[in-house]
Structure formats: structure tokens, C-alpha cells
């Protein structure tokens, strides 16, 4: 083995050793925790006192983007040495899906299922409920029967989009109810960046206030799949994507967290359909969004490089900035 080949091999090992999967696992856990805290905030109305996880999530996302940027830089170096770099295994939804899901019985599971049932219309969901053990004291089934519930919020999003675009409300309700609160509430966290990406594709640029009507028309196409979903929950998400201030009267209750999560799933289905995509294409959209984050992380590194004291390094960083793609 030549020296160069040996070096390329060592770099490949270092690239593969980067803890992208661990960071994805940590991010998924924070999303679950964030969903539960959102429920607490909604239930108590004490938004100022309930602990928040926004800063931690942002740091984690930044770390993930920086590691992907490092992998790309090392790949570029290996190519510069004249050796084709092996691709690094994807770290997207598949890795996250492998993280064990602590579903188990929880006090909140009933709360989640009850709200999903309400959104779906009671009769629509009753036939999906089967007793998997002794019935509760009231004789009603004790939990939702789902043979293979989604293992992560991203996977749930894909399943919801699939059921919606296939026009199968019963499957949609079953997927939602079976996911449980920890996975289900995470929809509200994983969907918005993807919605922004899809909306940008629809209107041809990052969605703005003037695109609100068009994006809303496309995104709301399938909200009838949950007949009792308050339309405001979906409109609020669309407004945020287009950087509009959601319209809300002062005395109105905040959006129920389950409504926001379920609405986000249906909106993704609407925009997938409006951009001629199906549920399977969501994986590509997730990868696009990751690439966008990587580009942002690279821009951060270049900004940091500008602060380097060495004038020659400073010069090359400025040159590199000039080469950076615009957009």
C-alpha cells in the first residue's frame, strides 16, 4: 500500500468514526422531550416558567451540520490526493429510526389517543381500537392496536403523508394514534424545515409573506382527512413558514399541541402533492434539508476563519468566501 493510499484509508476511518448517529439520537430525544414540554406549556398556560430546550436543540443541529461539513472537506482532500473517497453512510431518518422508542404505557398516551380520536371523529377511530389485554374498568379497549408503529417522528411523517396521499383516512388515524405522544408531538418539530423546503420549491424562492395565499391553498389540500382538526392550527403553521404573523385574537386558547403536530403532517402531504412528489420522496426532501444545513454550517466556519489572526489565512478565507455559492 502506498503512502497516499494509507493516508486516504486513515482519513476514511476518521470520517466514519464521526459520531453523526449519536448526535442524531440525541436530537431525536430532545425533540421528544420538547413535545412533552409543549404539552405542559399548553396545559398550564405558564409559558414563562416551563423549561425550554430550544437552545440545546440549536447547538445539536449546529454540531451535526459541522460534522457533515467536516466529512465533505475530508472527502475533498481525499479527492485532491487523487483517490476516490468512499461515501459515508447516510445519517438521516434510517439512523434515527434505529433508536429505541420508549413507547410503553404512559399517563399521556391516553391523552394523545383521546385527542386524535376527537380530531378524526369518534366513529372513525372506534373501529381501530382493539383490546390487546384486559379491557379497562369502563369496558373500553385499553390501548390502540398497531402492529408496527412508527419508530421516529420522521418515519411517522412519511407514513402520514403516504396514508394521506393514498386517500386512506383509517390508516392515517391508526398511524397517528399508535405513534403515542413522544413520537407524535415530534411532528411539530421535524415538519417545519421540510415544509419550508417544499414551499420554496413550489413558489421558486424561500417563501415570503406574499406567497402565503398560494402556499396555504396547496398545503391545506388534505386537512379534511382529520375532519375535526381546527383549521387555525394548520393556518398557523403555514403562516410561520411564510414568515407571517399568525392571526389570533387575544382571548383565544393556544393551539392544542396534538392539533399542531397532526396539522404539520397533513401540510407536508399537501405540499408533497403540490410539488408532484409522493411520500417516498420525503427522504430526498430530508436529505436536501440536511444539505442546506450543511451549507449553513460551512458558511459559519468561513465566517470564523475570517477572525483568524494570521494575515495569509485571513486572505485565503476571504478568497474562499468569494467562491462560495450564493443562495
Amino acid at each position, binding site marked *: 500500500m502506498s503512502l497516499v493510499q494509507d493516508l486516504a484509508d486513515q482519513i476514511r476511518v*476518521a470520517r466514519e468514526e464521526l459520531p453523526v448517529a449519536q448526535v442524531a439520537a440525541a436530537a431525536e*430525544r430532545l425533540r421528544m422531550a420538547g413535545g412533552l414540554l409543549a404539552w405542559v406549556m399548553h396545559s398550564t398556560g405558564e409559558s414563562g416558567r416551563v423549561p425550554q430546550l430550544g437552545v440545546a436543540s440549536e447547538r445539536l443541529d449546529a454540531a451535526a451540520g459541522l460534522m457533515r461539513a*467536516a466529512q465533505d472537506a475530508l472527502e475533498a482532500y481525499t479527492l485532491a490526493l487523487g483517490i476516490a473517497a468512499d461515501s459515508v453512510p447516510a445519517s438521516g431518518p434510517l439512523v434515527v429510526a434505529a433508536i429505541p422508542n420508549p413507547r410503553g404505557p404512559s399517563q399521556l398516551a391516553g391523552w394523545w389517543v383521546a385527542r386524535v380520536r376527537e380530531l378524526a371523529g369518534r366513529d372513525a377511530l372506534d373501529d381501530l381500537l382493539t383490546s390487546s389485554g384486559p379491557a379497562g374498568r369502563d369496558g373500553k379497549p385499553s390501548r390502540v392496536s398497531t402492529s408496527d408503529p412508527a419508530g421516529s417522528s420522521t418515519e411517522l411523517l412519511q407514513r402520514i403523508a403516504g396514508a394521506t396521499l393514498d386517500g386512506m383516512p383509517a390508516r392515517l388515524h391508526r398511524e397517528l394514534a399508535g405513534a403515542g405522544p413522544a413520537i407524535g408531538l415530534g411532528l411539530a418539530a421535524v415538519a417545519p424545515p421540510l415544509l419550508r423546503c417544499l414551499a420554496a420549491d413550489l413558489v421558486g424562492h424561500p417563501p415570503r409573506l406574499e406567497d402565503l395565499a398560494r402556499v396555504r391553498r396547496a398545503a391545506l389540500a388534505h386537512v379534511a382527512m382529520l375532519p375535526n382538526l381546527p383549521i387555525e392550527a394548520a393556518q398557523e403553521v403555514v403562516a410561520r413558514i411564510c414568515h407571517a404573523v399568525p392571526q389570533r385574537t387575544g382571548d383565544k386558547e393556544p393551539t392544542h399541541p396534538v392539533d399542531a403536530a397532526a396539522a404539520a403532517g397533513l401540510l407536508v402531504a399537501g405540499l408533497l402533492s403540490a410539488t408532484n412528489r409522493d411520500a417516498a420522496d420525503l427522504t430526498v426532501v430530508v436529505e436536501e434539508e440536511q444539505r442546506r444545513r450543511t451549507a449553513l454550517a460551512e458558511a459559519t466556519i468561513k465566517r*470564523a476563519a475570517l477572525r483568524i489572526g494570521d494575515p495569509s489565512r485571513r486572505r485565503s478565507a476571504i478568497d474562499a468566501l468569494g467562491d462560495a455559492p450564493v443562495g
Partner: protein
Amino acid sequence: MASVAEVKAAIDAAMLHVQESQDAVRAATEKLGEAQLSLALAVEGSGHDSVGAAQAALAQAASELDECLCATLTTVDQAQTYVAGL
């Protein structure tokens, strides 16, 4: 309106997830340190821009993980205070 017991249960469940997240971040930090070391040994003496960019990105990623951990510790403290006041 949720009962105090329900709110406490939700906070407990959330903090369990946060704890698992902290474990994952600690494991990631350790693994990242090892990767940085093996990379430094492999590319020692290289002045290539891509190598410099990769090392700067990994150093920044380590700092972000550290700050993430600090932020979660603050959240856990806030949660404990909040639950104590219920």
C-alpha cells in the same frame, strides 16, 4: 385542564428523554475527540485548505456539543425548580 400529577408525569418523562440525550451527547463528544485525534495524526504537517476546514469544523462541533450539554443541564435545573413549585 391537566392535573398536577399529569404535569409532573409529563415533566418526568421529558427529563428522562433529556437525560438520554445527555448520554448520547457525552458519547458523541468522546467519539468526536477520538476522531479528531486520529485525524490529527493522519494529516500531521498538511497545509491543505480542506484539512484546515475539516479540523476547524470538528473543533467548532465539539464546542457546540459542549454548549448543548450545558443548556440541557440548565433545563434540568429549571424543571426541578418548576416541579418543586407545583
